[in-house]
């Protein structure tokens, strides 16, 4: 077993060796520009790009013409939200999203607010789920866009996006779904799922970093304004020379994900449940987010009376994260856990375990043992644990805040 054990598959996944193998010839041998129409190098690249587009489209049961390549999920979310808001701004200026979205959605919405749009950020329930009823109540005659993620990156809960899609379609409102954590992990079928714009990315499904896709529905047709201008690639939606090798990698990753998803999810769920069972034996450990409405890859647990950063330090043989990777450099507790109504203490002491294709039973057993020992060690060090054991209710203590 190699240390540290990688349990951060929601941050990124390794490139599957089968994917890497497909990519390499497109760096050295078939290096042509897919936009070159005058010679075989260009034709070969274009052929590879279109084959990959077919695989990515098939993963979500879309038409290949509905797939627009992007540099990744952040760009995809920017293109979808800014693109739709700007195109439909004459119809209205109101956008609805929710508080536990990824920063790529939240910060894009903030930017639109600076340009005169009004954004409603819905609260989530304590299980991390958005209430469709609350969303319905927030709709206004001038609402043009709703953006709700499929799977939360920190707590892995699956939002009721299928219902939200129905609601938006019935009202004629554009619905964008950030499906970055769902792509390749959950079955997505845009023939049934009434989504208008859907963001996915390769590096969460064993493809390379630096390549993503935005699904843009053609029936009924959804319009967006391009955000990057230039040579008119991707039918004008997104200019820039296509990164053939990245695209080939994404295509192969999507093909493998579709073929292996069912059996892989079953295996990963068994490992996650083993981890959950192992950790259940620890006192004052709380699972964050709904356990049932959750992808099989995720377990997010708060260990009360233990501080998160010291816990991460204690488990340096595990590659896990406290909060999301994008915010773990800051000392703020996770905004997602705060949105669930978790106390600062519990938000500070959370660990996100995310499992994936290469996780083994041996690694999970190692993890359970390590977590148990280290939590116990840190609690022996913790004055809060001591007070808790003495029966003191910490919420009644007057702290000398600093």
């Amino acid at each position, binding site marked *: 077993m190699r240390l540290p054990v990688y349990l951060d598959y929601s941050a990124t996944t390794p490139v599957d060796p089968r994917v890497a193998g497909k990519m390499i010839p497109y760096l050295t041998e078939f290096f042509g520009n897919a936009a070159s129409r005058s010679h075989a190098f260009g034709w070969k690249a274009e052929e590879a790009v279109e084959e990959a587009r077919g695989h990515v489209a098939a993963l979500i049961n879309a038409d290949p013409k509905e797939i627009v390549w992007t540099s990744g999920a952040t760009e995809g979310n920017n293109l979808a939200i800014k693109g739709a808001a700007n195109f439909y701004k004459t119809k209205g200026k109101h956008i609805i999203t929710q508080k536990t979205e990824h920063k790529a959605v939240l910060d894009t919405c903030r930017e639109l607010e600076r340009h005169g749009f009004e954004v409603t950020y819905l609260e989530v329930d304590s299980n991390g789920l958005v209430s469709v009823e609350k969303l319905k109540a927030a709709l206004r005659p001038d609402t043009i866009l709703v953006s709700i993620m499929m799977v939360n990156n920190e707590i892995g809960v699956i939002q009721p996006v299928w219902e939200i899609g129905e609601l938006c379609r019935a009202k004629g409102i554009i619905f964008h779904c950030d499906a970055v954590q769902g792509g390749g992990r959950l079955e997505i079928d845009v023939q049934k799922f009434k989504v208008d714009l859907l963001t996915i990315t390769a590096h969460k499904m064993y493809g390379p970093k630096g390549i993503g896709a935005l699904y843009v529905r053609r029936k009924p047709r959804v319009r967006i304004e391009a955000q990057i201008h230039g040579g008119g690639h991707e039918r004008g939606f997104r200019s820039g020379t296509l990164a053939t090798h990245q695209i080939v990698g994404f295509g192969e990753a999507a093909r493998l994900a579709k073929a292996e998803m069912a059996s892989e999810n079953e295996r990963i769920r068994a490992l996650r449940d083993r981890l959950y069972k192992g950790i259940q034996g620890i006192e004052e450990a709380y699972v964050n987010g709904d356990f049932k409405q959750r992808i099989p890859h995720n377990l997010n647990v708060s260990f009360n*009376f*233990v*501080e*998160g*950063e*010291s816990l991460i*330090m204690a488990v340096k043989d595990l590659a896990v994260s406290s909060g999301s990777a994008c915010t773990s*450099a800051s*000392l703020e*507790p996770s905004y997602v856990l705060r949105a669930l109504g978790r*106390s*600062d*203490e519990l938000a*500070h002491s959370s660990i996100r375990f995310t499992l994936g294709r290469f996780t083994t039973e041996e690694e999970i057993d190692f993890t359970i043992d390590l977590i148990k020992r280290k939590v116990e060690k840190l609690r*022996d*060090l*913790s*004055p*809060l*644990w*001591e007070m808790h054991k003495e029966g003191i209710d*910490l919420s009644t203590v007057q*702290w*000398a*805040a*600093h």
Partner: protein
Amino acid sequence: MAYSDKVIDHYENPRNVGSFDKADDAVGTGMVGAPACGDVMKLQIKVGADGRIEDARFKTYGCGSAIASSSLVTEWVKGKTLEQATTIKNTQIAQELSLPPVKIHCSILAEDAIKAAVADYRKKHEFSESKDKKVA
């Protein structure tokens, strides 16, 4: 976050972990910080008949730097008079442990913990304050 070797050493082998009886007359207890801020330090000193700190204990809820800072000061206060102990500055702690700027608050907390423990001890011995001064 990259930690210095000294922080890692104190974190992995913390010195003087534990608790004294708060009610003991010879013990001064300082508790500083707040769970909401991510760190709470409890520092206890045991003062000998000669007015010097003969032993110290700590428990800390916090990051590795907070644990290391409190572990370090339990070593530093031993053998010192109360007066000497309160002259320990956060900058000395930060320097010893090579704390990065974002972790300076851990050393400040450790300095505050010493002051709080000494203040608690002095409060218990308000009437024998003169004895303490004589030694200093």
